């Protein structure tokens, strides 16, 4: 009955994300994608008609950089979040459905992984194995985000397991994995979409964090790498706000968008969470 509160955050979230995507479109319309190349323009120009967001000190057009960086960062985030949800769902379902020793092992693994500050491990990996591609980055980042999904899915499966339709499926002789895939999974889809958004948030924060430390795929233009370079070449000290501010603003919008959409999906998937509680 109180489904409506989801609409408002959904619209706010979509507006933020729309703004991010619009930046990409604007980049492709207003400047040529080739302007991301080094010294394709005069370096250190403040914004003007030819370069709406100015140029940075290697002579790259900032709007073109943003148009290239946003899809790259989104790719890593979505891949990282997606892989994390797949790993988490498989582990959570296995633990929740089979219980016993399997459950104990998976639960302990989740507890241990939740205790370890994942950025620390990522830093060690990043420092030890340089030169990573965007997809490699996505898979590494997934290591930071699978625990949440595993926990939530397990809890859900524990309640679903006792429902009538699962018992009937069991009595009719369906195997464990088929029950998981055919009976449990479809019921989890609203949850999974909310979990996916949260995993994407975790993955994005981790990716950008690593990149800001200079541990990202350095050959590719991403939002985090742009911030790293702006800091490295002291853009803020040189008054070049058009260098560091666009990636920061885009990321703030991205996080806001994901936050509101995650909230909306949460309240759709879990109506009890509506009202006062988070």
């Amino acid at each position: 009955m109180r489904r409506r509160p989801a609409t408002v955050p959904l619209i706010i979230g979509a507006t933020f994300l729309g703004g991010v995507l619009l930046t990409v479109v604007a980049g492709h319309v207003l400047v040529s994608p080739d302007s991301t190349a080094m010294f394709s323009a005069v370096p250190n120009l403040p914004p003007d008609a030819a370069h709406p967001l100015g140029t940075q000190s290697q002579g790259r057009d900032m709007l073109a950089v943003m148009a290239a960086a946003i899809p790259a960062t989104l790719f890593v985030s979505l891949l990282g979040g997606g892989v994390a949800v797949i790993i988490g769902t498989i582990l959570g379902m296995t633990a929740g459905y089979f219980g016993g020793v399997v459950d104990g092992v998976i639960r302990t693994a989740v507890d241990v992984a939740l205790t370890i500050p994942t950025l620390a491990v990522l830093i060690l990996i990043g420092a030890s194995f340089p030169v990573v591609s965007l997809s490699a980055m996505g898979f590494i980042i997934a290591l930071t985000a699978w625990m949440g999904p595993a926990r939530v899915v397990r809890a859900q499966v524990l309640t679903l397991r006792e429902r009538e339709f699962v018992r009937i499926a069991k009595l009719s002789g369906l195997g464990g994995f088929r029950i998981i895939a055919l009976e449990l999974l479809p019921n989890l889809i609203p949850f999974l979409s909310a979990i996916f958004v949260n995993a994407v948030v975790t993955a994005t924060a981790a990716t950008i964090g690593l990149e800001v430390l200079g541990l990202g795929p350095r050959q590719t233009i991403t939002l985090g790498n742009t911030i790293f370079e702006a800091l490295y070449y002291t853009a803020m000290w040189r008054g070049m706000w058009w260098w560091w501010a666009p990636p920061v603003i885009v990321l703030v919008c991205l996080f806001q968008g994901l936050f509101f959409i995650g909230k909306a999906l949460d309240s759709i998937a879990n109506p009890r969470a509506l009202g006062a509680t988070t």
Partner: protein
Amino acid sequence: MLRRTIIRILIFCLTVWVAITVNFIIVRATPVDPIAGILGRMASKGQSVQGGAEIVAFYRDTFALDEPWPVQYFMYLRQLLSGNLGYSLAYFPATVGDVLLHAIPWSLGLLLTAVSIAFVVGNLLGALGSWRRAPLVLRGLIYLSMTISAVPFYLLALILLYLFAFMWPILPTGGSFTVGSTRDFSLATAIDFIRHAILPVGSIALGLVGFWALSMRGVMTTVLDEDYLMYGRVKGLRERTLFLHYGVRNAILPQVTALAIDMGQLISGQVLVEAIFNYPGVGTVLFNALRTSDYFVIQGVVLFIIVSVSLAMLVVDLVYPLIDPRITAGEAGR
């Protein structure tokens, strides 16, 4: 209770062991060669030949490079257990332990100050917001703090840095003291110290407030529905007594556990904030080590962070049932 304690301690040991082992595997698998780095350094500046030789010797000792890998693994464990993390390549005579010891007080101070401020402000905001007579402004503030919490600390740090050190240059851009200033027990030193801490503390505290405000409001709303509150009201207690002694007192304890849950996330965030403000804590040590490929320092800091975070979470988990008698044996917060 005893069972829970034992399980919790076992999980702690398991975590530390996993961290150490992963560290060992990564070091063995990495294509980065610290020894080559040292030799290059020795060649570039002739004066550190002696230091280089010692580092190489340490490396040989630690990893027993000619032995099979199980032997190497145990040698490595032995070195770690004796507290020996190796030498810093960038500041040679200093060991990784020395470098860490200098940085830890700064990081700990930063963390504790930021968390305390956020805890008080956030819980206050959340509690007041749950009250029926909460003014609209207060609700607005909760929503604002909530949306700010959605942004990682390091982005908040960049925004605050620009606003208060560049746009309105009222605070320093980084470091812990003004360069060249004398440090004594005077008021001027104290003010200088505080001025340098405001932005790093602020970035972390600002990012945390919403988290606590929101969960406090949630907990308070359930507490305020309880029968004993109704009873207190019927008895004619003042609203303030009801609010503080009946409401907040019962809602605040669960908030303490929330403190522990995101410790890992919190520390990860602080590393970046310190690096951005060049604050002399563990995060900045790590950032500089990454820039100079000071491999043993990177490893040492990562191990230190993992062990200290797990330890902190262990302590909170074990102490919590003692403060809140409602949680006893068995399932705590699962």
